[in-house]
C-alpha cells in the first residue's frame, strides 16, 4: 500500500524532509480518496478539509446511491410542490432566484461518515454494511438559496400536514431498485435555516452536488439533503419508501454489537452529533523534535448546538490542553481550532476532543449500530518526530 506521501511524490509533489509545507499541499491539491468508484463515494483528504475554513467545492465529498442523472435540461426543470397544500407549485430555477436569497454556512456530513471505524473498534462482529467512509465524508460550505419556509408559505401548507416526501431527478437502473425518496417533518422544513440551495461556495451548485437545486437541512445528516430535487409532496404521514422506512435508521434501543435491528424498532437519523477532526498533522507529516508546530483541526455539532471547547492531547490522551477556537461564521458551520506545541523525538499520538453547549462530548468509541451511523469518536493521529 502506497502511503499518501509516496503517491504525492509520484505525482511530482514536493516531499519535504520536515513537516509537509503548504506549498507541497498545493502540489497535492485537488486529490480525493476513493471509497467507492461508481457511483462516486469520494471522500476529502484531511489536509484538504478546511484550507480556508471552508471545504473547496472541487474536493468536497461526493456521494449518492444512483449517481447524477445522465442529463438535465434546466429550462424544463421544475420543483413541484404538491399534496396537502392550498396552491400546488411548479417552480423553475428563475422562480427560485427571484425569491429572497439567503446564504447559510453549514457542515454537510454523510450519516455514514466514519463507518469504517465501527469495524475497527468492533472487529470480531459483523461490521456495519455500507460504504466504508473514514474521515472525509464531511465538508463545510456556504450554501446559497431560498428558505423552504418561503416556498411553503407560497404553497400554503394545509392543517394536519406533518411530513414532506422529497425526491430528485436521480433514478435507479433497475425498475425494482427503490428510488431515493426521503421523508422529513414539515416542522424542520419550516425552520428558517432550512433552504433549497442553488449555490455552493458562491458558485452555481455543481452538477455532481445536486444541480440545479438541493435541499440543505443544516445540522442534520446529509441523507435529508436531497440532490437534484424535483418533487416535494406534503402529507399527513411519513413516506413508506425504502430509503426512509428501512434505510438511514438508528435503533431506538442500542443492542449488542453485530446484531441487526428491525426497522420498526428504529427511528430516522436526524441530527448530527459533536465531532472534531485533526487536519494537521496527518499520519505522513514529518515533524522535527524541538521545532514548534501547530495542531489544527475543525469541530462542529448538530441540530444547532455550538462547540464550546476543544481539548488536544499530544501524549496519547494522558494529558489534555484546551485548544484555541476560531470564530464561527454561523451556527451550523464548523469552528477551526489550533494548538501550539513543540514535539520531542519519537512516535507521538495526537488526539482532539470536542464539547458542545448541550453537554455532549466526543466518546472514545461511538455506539455500534447496524447502519454504522453517527461515528463521532475521538480521532487519533500517530506522527513520527525525527531528531533535529
Amino acid at each position, binding site marked *: *500500500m*502506497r502511503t*499518501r506521501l509516496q*503517491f504525492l511524490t*509520484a505525482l511530482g509533489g514536493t516531499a519535504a524532509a520536515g513537516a509537509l509545507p503548504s506549498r507541497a499541499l498545493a502540489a497535492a491539491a*485537488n*486529490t*480525493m*480518496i*476513493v*471509497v*467507492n*468508484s*461508481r*457511483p*462516486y*463515494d*469520494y*471522500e476529502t*483528504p484531511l489536509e484538504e478539509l478546511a484550507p480556508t475554513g471552508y471545504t473547496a467545492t*472541487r*474536493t468536497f465529498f461526493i456521494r449518492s446511491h444512483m*449517481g*447524477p*442523472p*445522465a*442529463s*438535465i*435540461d*434546466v*429550462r424544463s426543470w421544475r420543483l413541484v410542490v404538491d399534496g396537502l397544500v392550498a396552491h400546488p407549485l411548479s417552480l423553475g430555477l428563475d422562480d427560485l432566484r427571484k425569491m429572497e436569497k439567503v446564504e447559510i454556512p453549514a457542515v454537510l456530513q454523510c450519516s455514514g461518515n466514519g463507518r*469504517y471505524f465501527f*469495524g475497527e473498534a468492533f*472487529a*470480531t*462482529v*459483523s*461490521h456495519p*454494511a455500507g*460504504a*466504508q*467512509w*473514514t474521515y472525509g465524508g464531511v465538508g463545510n460550505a456556504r450554501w446559497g438559496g431560498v428558505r423552504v419556509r418561503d416556498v411553503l408559505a407560497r404553497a400554503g401548507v394545509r392543517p394536519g400536514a406533518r411530513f414532506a416526501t422529497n425526491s430528485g431527478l436521480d433514478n*435507479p*437502473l*433497475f*425498475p*425494482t*431498485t*427503490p428510488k431515493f425518496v426521503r421523508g422529513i417533518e414539515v416542522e424542520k422544513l419550516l425552520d428558517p435555516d432550512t433552504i433549497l440551495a442553488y449555490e455552493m461556495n458562491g*458558485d*452555481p451548485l*455543481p*452538477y*455532481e*452536488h445536486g*444541480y*440545479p437545486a438541493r435541499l440543505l437541512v443544516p445540522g442534520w445528516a446529509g441523507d435529508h439533503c436531497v440532490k437534484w430535487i424535483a418533487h416535494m409532496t406534503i402529507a399527513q404521514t411519513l413516506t413508506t419508501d425504502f430509503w426512509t422506512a428501512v434505510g438511514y435508521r438508528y435503533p431506538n434501543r442500542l443492542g449488542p454489537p*453485530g446484531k*441487526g435491528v428491525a426497522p420498526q424498532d428504529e427511528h430516522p437519523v436526524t441530527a448530527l452529533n459533536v465531532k472534531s477532526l485533526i487536519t494537521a498533522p496527518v499520519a505522513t507529516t514529518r515533524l522535527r523534535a524541538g521545532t514548534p508546530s501547530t495542531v489544527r483541526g475543525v469541530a462542529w455539532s448538530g441540530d444547532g448546538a455550538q462547540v464550546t471547547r476543544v481539548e488536544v492531547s499530544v501524549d496519547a490522551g494522558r494529558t489534555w490542553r484546551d485548544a484555541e477556537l476560531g470564530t464561527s461564521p454561523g451556527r451550523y458551520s464548523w469552528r477551526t481550532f489550533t494548538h501550539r506545541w513543540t514535539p520531542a523525538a519519537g512516535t507521538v499520538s495526537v488526539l482532539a476532543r470536542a464539547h458542545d453547549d448541550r453537554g455532549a462530548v466526543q466518546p472514545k468509541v461511538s455506539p455500534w449500530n447496524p447502519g454504522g451511523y453517527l461515528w463521532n469518536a475521538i480521532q487519533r493521529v500517530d506522527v513520527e518526530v525525527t531528531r533535529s
Partner: protein
Amino acid sequence: MDCGAKRSTATAAAPTPAVRATSLAVGGATLPAGPELAVLQSSCQACHSFGLVTQQRLSAATWKAEVDKMRRFGAPLPKANEAAVVAYLAAHMGPRVPLAAPHTVVTAPPITYNEAHPVAAAHAPSTDSSAAGSQLYTQNCAACHGAAGAGAPGAFPPLAHDPVVTAANPADHITIMLKGLHGKAIGGTSYSSQMPSFSQLSDNEIAAIIDHERTSWGNNAPIVTPDQVKRAR
C-alpha cells in the same frame, strides 16, 4: 444510468477487466477464483463497482440479508447460486478477515457547471472523437462489458468479435444503444442482465462509443456518424 466511472491518475494504461481475474486481492484478504467469484463479478456491477462488495465484512446472516436485498433490487444473481455465493462471501469477507481503510487517492473528478448549457450533460464530450469514444466507453460501458470488451459470462456479452459490433450494417448496433437489450441469446449464450437504453447520450457521444467498439480489441468494422444515430431515434 450514469456509470460515472472515473480514471485514477495512478492506474496503469489498461486495467485488467475484473471478470478476468483468477483471484482478487482485497484489503488484506484474497478472494479465490471459482464459480462463486465469477457469479459475483457478473451479478454485482451493473449499478455499482465491485469494490463496494469487497469492502464489506459481514456475518453470514447479514450477507444473506444483503444478497436477498440486492436480488430484490434487481441484481441478476441466479437463485440457484445464492447459497454458494453467500457461503463464499461469509468465508472470504467475514468480520475476521482484515480490512484496510480506503486509500486509493485520485485527482478530484472535474465538477461541471451547467449555467451556460441549457441541456446539461453529465460529461462534456471532447472535440477529439477518438479520445472521446474511449473515455465515454470507459465511463458508460466498461463496467459491464469490460475495459477490453471481454464481458462477463452469463451476464454481459463480450464486444470483442461480437456479431452486432462487427456487422457491416451498423443498424442493430445503433438500435441497441438507443433502446437497450434484454433476453437475447448471443452466440448461443443467454444473458441474464438487462442492458439499459443510452438514449440520453448525445448523437455525438453514441457515435463515438460505437466507433470505439468497432475499432478496438481486434474489431475492424464500419464506423457510424452522429447523423446516423440521430436518424435512428
